[in-house]
C-alpha cells in the first residue's frame, strides 16, 4: 500500500496541503525530480528547495520553503488540498471517459485470414474477407454515429488487414465521404505484418487518410523468419525491410518487436540492420510482451511457451529501450495519464469481425465464445458485453494501491479476467516506475530539454 501523505499548513478544512500519492521522487546530478503519474508532469527541484519543502511537509513550518517551488508543485498536482480523494477523482475520469460519446471508434477486421503463421498468434484464423453485405451494415452503423460525434477513428486489423485490401479501400472511401459531410474528423491506422505494404499499397492507404502504420519484426532475419514465417513457412524479413522504405515516406511508422526469452538477446542485431537501412530517427521500435493465451484452444498461442512474466518483461523492456535509444530508434518516454484505456472497456467502441460479428477486445477476434453480437443490430448484444463494461479497477485493492493506476487504469481487462494471465494485465510502470523516471531524467538532462518538454509521445499499437 502507498503511504498516506501527511497534511501540512493551516489545518482548516480546505486550506491544508498534502502530497499526492502518485509522486515518484528521484535524485539525479544533485537535484531532486518529481514525476506525478496522475498529472504526467515532471519537475526539477533544487536540493535546497527540496529540503525546505521536505521540512514543511514534515511539519517543521514554512520558514525556509520557496513559494515558487510550492506553486509549481501545485501546478503539477504533486501537492494537493488536504483531504483530496485522488482515487475518487480518478474513478470519475475513468467512468466519464468510458461512457464518452464524443468519439466513435471501430477496429475492423477486413480479413481474418492471414498470410503469416506466427506460432504465438492468439487468433484461430481462417480465410474470410469482409463481403459487400457486411460492409453495408458497417456503413449504416457509422452513418448513425456520425450524426452525434466529433471524430471517427478506425484501426484496420486482422488476421491481416491488407489481405482484405478491397474492403479496406472501399470502406475507407465511404467513411471519408460520410465523415466530411458530417463535419467529423476521420483518421485511421493499420496494424499489419508489413508483407503487402508495397509502394502502391502505401499510396492507396495514405490517400485514405491512414496516418499510422505498425509492423512487426521480431529480430534479425533468422529469428524473425522463425517467429513470423509466411503461412507456407518461407521467410519475409527483407520484404518487410524493403516495404518500410515506402511506408516511411507516407506514415508515422512503429515497429513492434515481440520478445520472449528466446529472442530478447538478439534484438540488437535487428537494431543494427534498421540503423544501416537509414531508419534511425525515422521510426520507433518498442517491445511487446508475448503471452501464452490459452483460453482459445484453437489459437496457436495455446501451446506457446518461453514467455516472460510481467516483472521479467519490465526488466527486459529497460534493456531493450536503452539499446533502441543508442541506435536512434526510440527516445525515453514516461506514460501519460489516461482514461478508460482501450476499446474493450469503452462503451462507444467496437471490434467488427470479417463476418460482421462483434467483439469488445482485439484478443477475442476469431473466438466464437467471445462474440457479443452482430453488426446488423449493434443494440442487440448478448450478456458477454456486460463483463467488459463493468470491469472496474477501482474495485481492485491491488490497483487502488498502485502508483501506476493513473496511467494504466486497470490495464488489460482481458488478462484480468483470465486467472492464468492475471498478472500480465499490468503495464511495466508498476514494476519499474522509479527506473523509468530516472532514465527519462538522465536522458532529458544529458540531451537538453528542447524537444522533450511537450511530452515525447510514442505510438503503441497491438499486433501479433
Amino acid at each position: 500500500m502507498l503511504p498516506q501523505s501527511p497534511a501540512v499548513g493551516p489545518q482548516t478544512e480546505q486550506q491544508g496541503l498534502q502530497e499526492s500519492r502518485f509522486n515518484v521522487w528521484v535524485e539525479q546530478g544533485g537535484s531532486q525530480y518529481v514525476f506525478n503519474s496522475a498529472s504526467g508532469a515532471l519537475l526539477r527541484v533544487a536540493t535546497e528547495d527540496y529540503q525546505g519543502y521536505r521540512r514543511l511537509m514534515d511539519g517543521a513550518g514554512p520558514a525556509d520553503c520557496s513559494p515558487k517551488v510550492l506553486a509549481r508543485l501545485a501546478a503539477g498536482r504533486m501537492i494537493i488540498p488536504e483531504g483530496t480523494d485522488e482515487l475518487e477523482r480518478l474513478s470519475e475520469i475513468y467512468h466519464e471517459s468510458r461512457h464518452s460519446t464524443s468519439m466513435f471508434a471501430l477496429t475492423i477486421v477486413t480479413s481474418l485470414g492471414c498470410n503469416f503463421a506466427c506460432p504465438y498468434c492468439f487468433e484461430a484464423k481462417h480465410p474470410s474477407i469482409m463481403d459487400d453485405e457486411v460492409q453495408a451494415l458497417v456503413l449504416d452503423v457509422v452513418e448513425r454515429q456520425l450524426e452525434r460525434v466529433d471524430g471517427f477513428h478506425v484501426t484496420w486489423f486482422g488476421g491481416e488487414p491488407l489481405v482484405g485490401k478491397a474492403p479496406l479501400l472501399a470502406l475507407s472511401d465511404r467513411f471519408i465521404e460520410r465523415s466530411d459531410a458530417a463535419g467529423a474528423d476521420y483518421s485511421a491506422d493499420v496494424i499489419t505484418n508489413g508483407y503487402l505494404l508495397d509502394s502502391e499499397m502505401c499510396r492507396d492507404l495514405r490517400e485514405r487518410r491512414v496516418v499510422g502504420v505498425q509492423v512487426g519484426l521480431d529480430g534479425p532475419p533468422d529469428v524473425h523468419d522463425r517467429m513470423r514465417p509466411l503461412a507456407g513457412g518461407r521467410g519475409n524479413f527483407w520484404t518487410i525491410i524493403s516495404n518500410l522504405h515506402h511506408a516511411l515516406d507516407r506514415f508515422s511508422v512503429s515497429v513492434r518487436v515481440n520478445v520472449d526469452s528466446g529472442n530478447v538477446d538478439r534484438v540488437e542485431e535487428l537494431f543494427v540492420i534498421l540503423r544501416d537501412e537509414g531508419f534511425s530517427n525515422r521510426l520507433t521500435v518498442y517491445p511487446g510482451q508475448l503471452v501464452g493465451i490459452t483460453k482459445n484452444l484453437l489459437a496457436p498461442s495455446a501451446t506457446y511457451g518461453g514467455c516472460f512474466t510481467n516483472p521479467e518483461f519490465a526488466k527486459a523492456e529497460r534493456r531493450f529501450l536503452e539499446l533502441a535509444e543508442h541506435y536512434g530508434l526510440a527516445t525515453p518516454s514516461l506514460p501519460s495519464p489516461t482514461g478508460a484505456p482501450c476499446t474493450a472497456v469503452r462503451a462507444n467502441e467496437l471490434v467488427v469481425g470479417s463476418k460482421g460479428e462483434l467483439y469488445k477486445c482485439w484478443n477475442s477476434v476469431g473466438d466464437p465464445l467471445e462474440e457479443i453480437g452482430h453488426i446488423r443490430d449493434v443494440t442487440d448484444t448478448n450478456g458477454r458485453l456486460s463483463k467488459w463494461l463493468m470491469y472496474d479497477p477501482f474495485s481492485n485493492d491491488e490497483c487502488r494501491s498502485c502508483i501506476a493506476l493513473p496511467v494504466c487504469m486497470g490495464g488489460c481487462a482481458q488478462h484480468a479476467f483470465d486467472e492464468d494471465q492475471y498478472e500480465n494485465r499490468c503495464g511495466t510502470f508498476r514494476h519499474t516506475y522509479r527506473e523509468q523516471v530516472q532514465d527519462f531524467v538522465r536522458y532529458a538532462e544529458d540531451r537538453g530539454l528542447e524537444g522533450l518538454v511537450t511530452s515525447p509521445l510514442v505510438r503503441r499499437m497491438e499486433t501479433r
Partner: protein
Amino acid sequence: MDDPYDVDDTTEDQAMIDDDDFLLRPDLPEGFRVQLSGVVSAQGVTSDWLQRLGSVMMQLQRASSIPGKPACGKLRRCGSFRGGCPNLSHCGTYAPPGTPTV
C-alpha cells in the same frame, strides 16, 4: 493588492507554466493559470499564502479534464502504455490527421 491567483491568461502566467524546471509540463485546464508575478513577489510562505494556494488547488482539482481530451477540444495521442502491456498498447485517444509523433 491583486489576487495573485486569479485566472487571467497573462504573459507572466505563461512564464510560470513554461518554466524550464518542468521537464514535462502539467496539462492545466484551459483558463487556469497561476500568476507567476504573485508567486515570485511573495516574500515567503505564510499561513495566508498557503490558504490562497489551497484555494487555487481546489479549483484545479475540480477543473481537471479527462486525459486525452484537453479542454481546447483537440484530440491527441496519449501513448500511455510504454509497450508494457501486449494487448492494450493502442491507447485509445486519437490524433487528427497529420499529427506528428516522436
